[in-house]
């Protein structure tokens, strides 16, 4: 019995492949689990009970279950005591050691869920063996659809794959031996004035630092707003793979959570300019419609709730998100009437959906500690499970700082990359008070960075005027650029 915990959309394809290849006499089957990835093992409370029920319905007691799952941080901790076999796709050989003590885990170095399914087909005897090689069909080349608006993301360097010397070569392996062409030799009469001052080499080598250039529209916008985003941010974002999910929750209201989420997303949107990538800002602050509700988002903009409904029922997806003025930022508002949580599996599919369309995701979460007791808390828990980075905003109000510590202590935050965006009071006595500094010291020990943001009434003015916080004050703009740069650096360093 093969259970796919692989991410969408590959999961469906993988299960289709497995089913098609199963030997009919083996009485086996392949199914997609309702919850994928690590969440399948780590679910608690109602979700765990649902999964137990699902398991009883789908996995016969005498079956030999085989789980197919892609590696996630901490996965190995959940495999002890499992009476199933597990086939895990890991990013590199080094990751194999994490699973060494699990005899029932087969570890395959691959980032491709389909390759993992193919491995299972080769490794388990219940699949039909390949017939003797037939002559490959001549003239048919399966070509991909090129997506000019999707980013060509380069994943973290992997060790060279299986020894190419023992594998059959393909045309690309042969061609990859060639480097870029050397620059053409110029005749004397072709020497330009420029070449007298440069090296005359107009060719851009593959190793050169070629950076995305900003397009005409973006440059106009940037000139008008005088918003200059360090190039480093865009470069780092385009190198992150898969697209990171950054969540901004808080224990306490009034600490600038929505402002922080919006500003970070907007900085990324500017940084991406008119590269083919875009960022997304998602409103999941379901308990506080006042914040996003004050924003002038078109009534026709599709909401997260509509998108979730379409994803869960297979209906047509709602219109593309409302695009903010920022060059490359998609806005996903929530239904103002939304009060219910979404199932974790659906949130996982939603995030996967966003990851296929954007290169950076920011989610504004409710002011709740993560657990499964209320809708807002469950939303926090589900997104935290998937988050690559958590930004906890705070002020120097001691109760807000204690709220940060309280958040850091929740089980959902275990092993998470966390930074703090700290709005500093203009009152010197307050910001240097020993209670504040001691709490900050304690927080500082437990997060990757604390970035300061000046307290400014301009933030409120931005809401009142309905303009971007990046446009309203150079001080705030610079501060949120720093927050964003730190976030992106932390993500890049975490790999």
């Amino acid at each position: 019995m093969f259970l796919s915990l692989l991410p969408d959309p590959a999961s469906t394809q993988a299960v289709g492949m497995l089913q098609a290849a199963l030997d009919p006499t083996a009485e086996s089957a392949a199914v997609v689990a309702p919850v994928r990835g690590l969440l399948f093992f780590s679910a608690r409370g109602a979700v765990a009970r649902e999964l137990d029920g699902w398991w009883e319905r789908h996995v016969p007691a005498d079956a030999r279950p085989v789980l197919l799952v892609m590696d996630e941080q901490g996965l190995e901790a959940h495999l002890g005591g499992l009476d199933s076999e597990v086939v895990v796709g890991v990013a590199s050989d080094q990751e194999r050691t994490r699973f060494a003590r699990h005899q029932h885990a087969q570890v395959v170095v691959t980032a491709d869920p389909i390759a993992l399914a193919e491995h299972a087909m080769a490794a388990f005897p219940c699949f039909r063996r390949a017939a003797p090689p037939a002559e490959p069909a001549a003239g048919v080349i399966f070509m991909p659809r090129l997506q000019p608006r999707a980013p060509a993301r380069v994943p973290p360097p992997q060790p060279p794959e299986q020894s190419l010397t023992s594998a059959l070569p393909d045309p690309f392996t042969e061609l990859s031996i060639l480097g870029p062409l050397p620059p053409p030799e110029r005749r004397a009469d072709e020497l330009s004035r420029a070449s007298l001052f440069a090296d005359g080499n107009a060719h851009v080598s593959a190793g050169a630092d070629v950076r995305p250039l900003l397009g005409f529209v973006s440059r106009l916008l940037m000139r008008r707003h005088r918003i200059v985003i360090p190039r480093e941010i865009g470069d780092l974002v385009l190198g992150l793979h898969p697209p990171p999910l950054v969540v901004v929750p808080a224990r306490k209201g009034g600490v600038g959570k929505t402002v922080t989420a919006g500003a970070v997303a907007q900085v990324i949107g500017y940084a991406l300019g008119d590269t083919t990538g875009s960022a997304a800002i998602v409103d999941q602050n379901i308990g506080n419609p006042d914040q996003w509700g004050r924003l002038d988002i078109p009534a026709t903009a599709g909401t997260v709730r509509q998108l979730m409904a379409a994803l869960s029922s297979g209906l047509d997806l709602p219109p593309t998100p409302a695009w903010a003025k920022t060059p490359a930022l998609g806005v996903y508002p929530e239904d103002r009437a939304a009060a219910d949580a979404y199932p974790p599996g659906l949130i996982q599919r939603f995030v996967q959906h966003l990851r296929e369309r954007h290169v950076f995701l920011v989610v504004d979460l409710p002011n709740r500690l993560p657990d499964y007791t209320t809708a807002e808390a469950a939303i926090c828990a589900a997104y935290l499970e998937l988050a690559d980075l958590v930004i906890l905003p705070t002020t120097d109000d001691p109760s807000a700082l204690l709220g940060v510590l309280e958040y850091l202590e929740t089980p959902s935050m275990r092993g998470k990359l966390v930074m703090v965006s700290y709005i500093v009071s203009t009152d010197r006595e307050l910001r240097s008070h020993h209670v504040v500094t001691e709490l900050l010291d304690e927080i500082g020990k437990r997060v990757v960075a604390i970035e300061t943001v000046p307290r400014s009434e301009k933030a409120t003015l931005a809401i009142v005027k309905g303009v971007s916080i990046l446009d309203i004050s150079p001080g705030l703009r610079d501060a949120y650029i720093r927050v964003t740069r730190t976030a992106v650096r932390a993500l890049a360093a975490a790999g």
Partner: protein
Amino acid sequence: MFGRRSRRVEVSPDVQRERQIEHVHSLTYALLLDLVAWFLDLREPVNDGLFPEYRLPQLKDIADPRERLGAYCSPRLLAAWEPVRARWLTRGIRVKPDFGTTATLQIEGLDGEEAPRAVARFTDRSVIERGAQRQYNSRDWVLTTWLRPDLSRIEDATFRPAGVEAGAR
């Protein structure tokens, strides 16, 4: 607060830019298809039904993929690839080409400040056979092409496995 106002603003209203992107898209797609056809010695016109994204109509009816490549690739590039192809053909390897269902394409330098460059990333899922040996490929590749500033032809192109730094050969 985030500048989300009452009107939606398109990412790029620049029609000229759209055309440039479309053209680079067409050249990149054509390069991948024609190059593989050339290596496999498939001498057939491009089938519209099979390859609807092959948008170089003036070349579709040409059966020889080398001739098609010659229409939009620099002679120096094709000359560099010739010996690689010749060596490949002597290996007696059969290929059932499959490059997945989607690929990504990033285009840079359309502002004219640097050489236009396109980076396509695709997955090779081809089946490779020699004798009774069969291999199922599953590997991501990055195809980088450098174009003339007027986008009239591809001046250079390289293939490298995804995850290997450019230039790290």
